[in-house]
């Protein structure tokens, strides 16, 4: 009964993963009629220590980590705030819930294209127009995607916009399961709004918050689509300020036809994901213990 799923997972996860370890040791080029030559650990040495290659790779890793370090807390906090806002049983809440959830159904490739136009450099873009309008022209046009300072931040903003509603819904479900008696008891104790939040709400949704944070961390490591769409086909994204590990792997494989290096990047990427998952598991079990 388990055979179909297990054989599919073998073919499309286990075999490719083991193959990538093999590929990473050779100079593998797609479409090259010559046999690949053995390179040993050269690819790994290069992506980790050769400044020309490792510079890009380590930058990419850093961008993933910055992305995670910003998106995980900010998006989770925002999602919790939104969930609290729409939790109240008031007229019109259904509309707001749907509204915040709406971006979740947008494929991230489309999100990147919409935001590319909003963030367009020069005064043509909607954001620059809006800022100029509200500041009475005091705020000059910014090159949001092209500037080293704002490129990654722009990608983070559009990613949060797309992903936040998903977490909001999860947290909303958790909030609705916090027993109302707890709030009533807190009110009897004359706890103010902040105290109720800290002593009733937060402990009530803690497990869900941890889940949401874990899930978002893994997503942050996988970031690719929006970077690719914005950097290729003339989106004007500052590639150096935003490249991610997956972007490095795909460009090495697809643009440079360097399957060996791309495989080495994939293997390292896998190890990083495993290590981070283990750290997180340890942290969460300690908290729960």
């Amino acid at each position, binding site marked *: 009964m388990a055979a179909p799923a297990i054989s599919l997972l073998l073919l499309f996860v286990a075999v490719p993963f083991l193959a990538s370890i093999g590929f990473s040791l050779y100079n593998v080029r797609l479409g090259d009629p010559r046999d690949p030559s053995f390179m040993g650990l050269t690819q790994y040495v290069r992506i980790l220590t050769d400044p020309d290659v490792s*510079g890009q790779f380590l930058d990419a890793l850093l961008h993933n980590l910055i992305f995670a370090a910003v998106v995980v807390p900010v998006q989770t906090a925002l999602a919790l705030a939104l969930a609290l806002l729409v939790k109240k049983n008031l007229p019109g809440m259904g509309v707001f819930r749907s509204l915040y959830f709406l971006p979740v159904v947008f494929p991230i490739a489309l999100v990147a294209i919409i935001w590319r136009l909003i963030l367009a450099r020069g005064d043509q873009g909607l954001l620059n127009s809006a800022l100029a309008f509200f500041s009475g022209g005091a705020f000059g046009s910014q090159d949001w995607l092209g500037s080293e300072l704002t490129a990654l931040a722009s990608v983070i903003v559009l990613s949060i916009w797309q992903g936040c509603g998903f977490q909001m819904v999860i947290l909303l479900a958790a909030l609705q399961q916090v027993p109302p008696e707890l709030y009533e008891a807190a009110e009897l104790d004359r706890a103010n709004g902040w105290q109720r939040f800290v002593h009733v709400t937060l402990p009530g949704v803690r497990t869900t918050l941890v889940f949401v944070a874990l899930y978002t961390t893994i997503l942050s490591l996988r970031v690719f689509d929006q970077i690719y769409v914005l950097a290729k086909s003339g989106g004007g994204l500052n*590639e150096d300020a935003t490249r991610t590990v997956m972007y490095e792997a795909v460009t090495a494989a697809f643009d440079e036809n360097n399957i060996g290096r791309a495989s080495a990047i994939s293997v390292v990427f896998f190890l990083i994901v495993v290590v981070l998952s283990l750290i997180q598991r340890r942290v969460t079990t300690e908290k729960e213990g």
Partner: protein
Amino acid sequence: MTIGTGLSLALLLSACSGDSESSGGEESDGAIEVWAHAGQAAESEALQSLVDEFNSSQEDVTAELTLIPEADYTSTIQSTSAEDLPEVMEMDAPTMASFVYDRKLIPLEDVVSADALDNRIGGVEESGTYNDATYAVGMFDVGLGLWGNKTLLDEAGIEAPTTADEAWTVDEFDTYVAELAEVAPSGKAIDLGEANGFAAEWGTFTTTPDIWSAGGTLMLDGEADGVLNSQENVDALERWASWKEFADPNTSGTAFPDGETALTWTGNWMYPTFSEALGEDLVLMPLPDFGQGTKAGHGSWQWGATPTAEGNTEAAGAFLDFLLSDDSINAMVEANAAVPGSTSALEQSELYGPDKPLELFADNLASACGSEDVTEECIAVARPVTPGYPTVTSAFGSALLAIWGGADVQDELDSAARAIDSDFADNDGYQND
């Protein structure tokens, strides 16, 4: 080479691919597949009508055209194994050598008619030849220049040069872009085409004239270190990056024809759009001279036949001969205003020749050379002809994008040169065996 597991699995599961339009295999002898890049809309439309015309002009061969976006075109051919390629495919001139190296192209001497081969202009013949064999034939060659809006130039009191000898020096160019930014409605003087992506082939194609004109080049004798990162190149690209302040991002794609900017740095294919929008206001100028005379790129999209066509070379040949006929060439250059690729079509051309609007491009091509021996006299320079070109342009393009974003020019070029040399070393210098 193919990995056994992948292959056997593919065979095992090919039964599952119930898709009726799946390619290859079951077609009759008279049907050929054709792949082309989708770049400028007008060009793609012209090609589509040529294919339709070819199909209705005779009954033996049916060509099926597939358009693949320009941004992914070369990667796609690279990722497709030789037996899955279409019979006939388009390729950008500098990528030809790498496809020959990967055995994805066959020589065309016995495929295309001798008349068509003899009729080619020099530039087209040169870009189609590798290791003394013809692997590609082109319907046209390309011209790269600086286009100006006369009204705005007049407003700033700047006179436009018309011949290569009169090209602005780069110092003059620096002054003029600053002045033109003052008069241009968008506040920006020039569109350098950054919306096309400098990391893509566009970057290499449009900035190499700067470094050639400064006395530099990309590679010499299969080495990039000491060549690509030379002082000449660093200085030239520092200049180039300094123009960002005056450059319109052109997200709309129509900044110059709308009269928003005074200048644009692009190729012949924009002529129909520009001349329709600006009429008499449009002027064509040589690119700025960085010291060794103005330079321009050459080598454009061209056609080749793949090993899939072997055994059916007549069909591929018939299609290629049709594309190389003067009528087809005329139809294509009407859409993209390129330099006609055959001597006879060039002679009849409405655009090229003495006192015609695009005379400059034809003159440039008349003094063409390769990138390893750029002289002061030579104007149109071909990009390096090597199987390692994809790495060269990818490394150079990444450097360009970073430089445009404000990175240190020397650092970026050093790094690009090392990346290229290490890739060449990994592949034994891409020696053909």
